[in-house]
């Protein structure tokens, strides 16, 4: 493994040259370049450390990264949500975070999404959290060809959309007033039961 590869994200495990399947949208990560901010050489330069000290510092960082990732699996549901929301806040707090004129994710939207997730019954599995260019956070449930996305905007309106296994579509908007609407809860329960 080259030095630059050590600081690849998980995404580096994929070969960017993989060809896509005919009918699928294939994701290809861009490999980090030598001028990227997280390369080993940059860390050495900025830390002012040389030789053994630099190596030790890098080892410590790698150890911390590994432990951080390892601990993710043991975090409670709530801690995991907080961690995901923090990541989204860090990445999407400024306009144009997606490179295509996205609206920033506001603290209000972060808080409302957190509040919504806290109110979900325990038997509902945790969704993936997906920042949307409209400034909302999508809560995405996916399971074997079925999917459901729920998001809350800053005006307290819930938007939901989903696909059933049979190819049916569900979608709509509902006002959010601090209680999870029964329609949403029913859809989530159907999803969980399938």
């Amino acid at each position: 493994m080259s030095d630059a590869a050590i600081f690849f994200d998980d995404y580096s495990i994929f070969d960017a040259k993989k060809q896509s399947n005919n009918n699928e949208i294939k994701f290809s990560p861009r490999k980090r370049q030598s001028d990227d901010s997280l390369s080993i050489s940059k860390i050495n330069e900025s830390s002012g450390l040389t030789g053994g000290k630099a190596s030790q510092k890098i080892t410590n960082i790698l150890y911390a990264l590994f432990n951080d990732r390892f601990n993710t699996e043991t975090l409670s549901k709530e801690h995991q949500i907080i961690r995901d929301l923090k990541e989204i806040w860090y990445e999407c707090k400024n306009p144009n975070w997606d490179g295509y004129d996205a609206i920033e994710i506001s603290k209000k939207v972060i808080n409302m999404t957190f509040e919504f997730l806290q109110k979900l019954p325990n038997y509902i599995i945790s969704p993936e959290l997906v920042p949307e260019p409209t400034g909302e956070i999508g809560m995405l449930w996916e399971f074997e060809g079925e999917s459901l996305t729920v998001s809350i905007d800053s005006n307290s309106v819930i938007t939901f959309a989903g696909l059933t296994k049979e190819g049916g579509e569900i979608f709509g908007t509902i006002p959010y007033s601090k209680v999870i609407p029964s329609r949403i809860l029913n859809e989530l329960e159907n999803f969980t039961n399938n």
Partner: protein
Amino acid sequence: MDTNIKNSEKISRYIFSKKHCSVQKEKLKYAAFMPPTSHPNEISVYRISNLKESEIWDIGIKFVAEKSNRQLFGRGDMKVSDIV
């Protein structure tokens, strides 16, 4: 370049947010294809048929990343027939 776009043509969407990629599934998430509110009926994709891998990345860097001052994270490749 031919302005007639065929269904079999390959196109690419450049990605700047890691939250828009599912690494395990090697797929893009739906939000990667949501248009901005400023242009609600448009998203940018790039024609990549017959281009070399390095040329495809160059387009993303020069015409998308540098213009928006963002670091290119990845891309999603698809056929025109996948979306029309």
